[in-house]
């Protein structure tokens, strides 16, 4: 291995990347079309509706992307199921795997360590999943359950009201709309910053699109994962000399920056609008 030869490790499989791509497309569309309705009295919302061709088109896009959302939720279940089968662990063993996606005590310690690091302490000994990544993943589950169920009620109000009082639809509207505000606000600020916009990564961390991360980056970012690989003797097995193709990298940059920009613009519009309302005393 010469010094100039960069080595790569696969972080995300093609299937995982595909799921994330579905999430991006559906989530961004859901957020734009939904916020246009939530903030319909604002000029920017009217422009979105105008561009789309009317609120009915926004509604159709929103429902189509809801279907994609349920679809990727299903794909994620398959992904988790196959990962569980491959791991050879018991179900509880898989769910509460210390290196798995469910938050545990180590995450709490790392979170405290992270705050120390912000103030000059040592960078925590991060592993394959860091707590803010776990939060993103779990939030999607929580979000789909809450937004998805309230959204279905609003999609089929007549059927829903056969089993529940009609005014539950009013409650569903508030929950759907505010949970969506939380989700969109979170993804377009916190997730974007944690993953892409923070100075260490700015403007984009393409790993979710290209799948591979350089060995140096892994060693620096996730020392525990690196050490675990070395200890297990799996490092050589996972290493690859092949960098992601230039085409893939270029696509990742263009697409990623487009998405991050669109999401950021939407969140700026929302924040400006919210401040306007708070000032007006609503």
């Amino acid at each position, binding site marked *: 291995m010469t010094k100039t030869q960069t080595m790569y490790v696969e972080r995300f499989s093609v299937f995982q990347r595909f799921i994330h791509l579905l999430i991006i497309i559906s989530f961004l569309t859901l957020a734009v079309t939904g916020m246009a309705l939530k903030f319909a009295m604002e000029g920017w919302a*009217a422009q979105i*509706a105008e561009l789309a061709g009317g609120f009915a088109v926004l509604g159709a896009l929103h429902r189509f992307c809801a279907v994609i959302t349920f679809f990727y939720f299903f794909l994620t279940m398959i992904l988790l199921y196959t990962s569980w089968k491959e791991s050879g662990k018991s179900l509880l063993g898989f769910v509460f795997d210390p290196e798995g996606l469910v938050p545990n005590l180590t995450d709490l310690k790392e979170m405290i360590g992270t705050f120390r690091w*912000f103030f000059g302490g040592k960078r925590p000994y991060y592993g394959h999943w860091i707590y803010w990544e776990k939060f993103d993943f779990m939030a999607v589950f929580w979000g789909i359950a809450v937004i998805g169920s309230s959204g279905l009620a*609003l999609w089929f109000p*007549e059927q829903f009201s056969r089993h529940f009082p009609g005014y539950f639809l*009013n409650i569903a509207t508030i929950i759907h709309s505010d949970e969506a*505000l*939380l989700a969109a606000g979170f993804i377009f600020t*916190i997730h974007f910053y944690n993953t892409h916009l923070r100075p260490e990564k700015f403007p984009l961390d393409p790993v979710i699109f290209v799948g591979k991360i350089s060995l140096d980056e892994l060693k620096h970012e996730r020392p525990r994962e690196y050490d675990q690989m070395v200890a297990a003797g799996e490092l050589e097995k996972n290493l690859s000399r092949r960098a992601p193709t230039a085409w893939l990298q270029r696509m990742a940059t263009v697409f990623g920056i487009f998405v991050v920009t669109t999401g950021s613009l939407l969140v700026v519009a929302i924040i400006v609008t919210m401040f306007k309302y708070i000032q007006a005393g609503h």
Partner: protein
Amino acid sequence: MRHKDTLLSRAGTSFCLLLMAAVWMPGIAFGLTNDDCLGCHGDSTMTTQKDGKTISLFVDENTFKETVHAANGCVSCHVEAEVAGDEHPFPMTPVDCAGCHDAIGDTYGKSAHGLAKGKGDALAPSCQDCHSKHDILKPSNPRATTYPLNIPYTCGRCHQEGSSMTTTHELNKHNITKNYSMSVHGKGLFESGLIVTAVCSSCHTAHDVQKASVPTSSVNRDNIIQTCNQCHVGIVDKFKTSVHSPLVTKTNKKLPVCIDCHTDHSVSQVHDKDFRLIIAKQCGNCHEHQSETYLETYHGRASMLKGGERTAKCSDCHGSHNIMPSQDPASTINAANIVKTCSACHPKANQSFTTYLTHATHQDKEHYPYLFYTFWAMTGLLVGTFSFFGLHTLLWVPRSIIERLKAINKGQ
């Protein structure tokens, strides 16, 4: 120079005529015929100067012969000329139409136009400003200034925004001719050629034009229903039984009349996008709370976006001219009828579905505690989440910059 020439030739003619009269008709009263007048005024080049402007004094005999006054002699209006005999004074005093049209003259004198004229308003119209001078035709004649198709132009000469009248007078209404042209009445007239449609005078009357604030005005709030009823027969009967009628609702508050919902000059067809998009606003002028809370719901939100005319508006659920209180069995929102009302858009609507709160707001704790607490629980969740992660991010920024700088230095 022309005037001088004319005077000279007129003097010549007069002299000859006088001579002839003296020789052939001693003792017979002198009478001017139209031919006498046209001797001078039949010359199409005859002009005079007034206030620095050149004014034609030509009267086209052929045109005049087709007018309603064809049988009248010039001197029946220009009385002064007859009295004066051949050489009438210049300038002449204006023609007084009320000499014959006395009833109309009285009405005009009490109208907004007549009163303004009386006060010396130079821009106030007199008969000729609307009817023309020597070209007065029956209103049924398409060339008449009072033909329905021409009335908006006749009135518009003064009432069009930007005219010297509109810029010098304080007016309550603006862009009236433009709004009228875009209205259902204006489109009916200009696009569909419906001369039975309402033109200015249909609502404002022709000679009794009064400001809306005058109690006897045809467009006064108390009279407007009758004015609209001239064409919109039958609607008044429905309206009389509705909550908006003073016969049903005894209140000191202002009850609506036609124009409060339909607007005046810009009145549009009720199925038109333009009208459907202003319904909530129009009703909201009185029902402010209901309108605001409606706008918070899906129906209201979607109505603000392109294509929003399709969502339910006030009148889709409450009706329009026949609005009844919800307790009334005839009301569209009475428990007995509400499922049918919702079914117009939601074919599978059921009784439970109709308990959806169409005017709900989470700001009203007393009436909608569920919504109030849901909203504040959600807001708490949002504020909590964003506070924690916002702080996390803010503290991370300086650290992240340091890390980036370290990486750059290492690279060098």
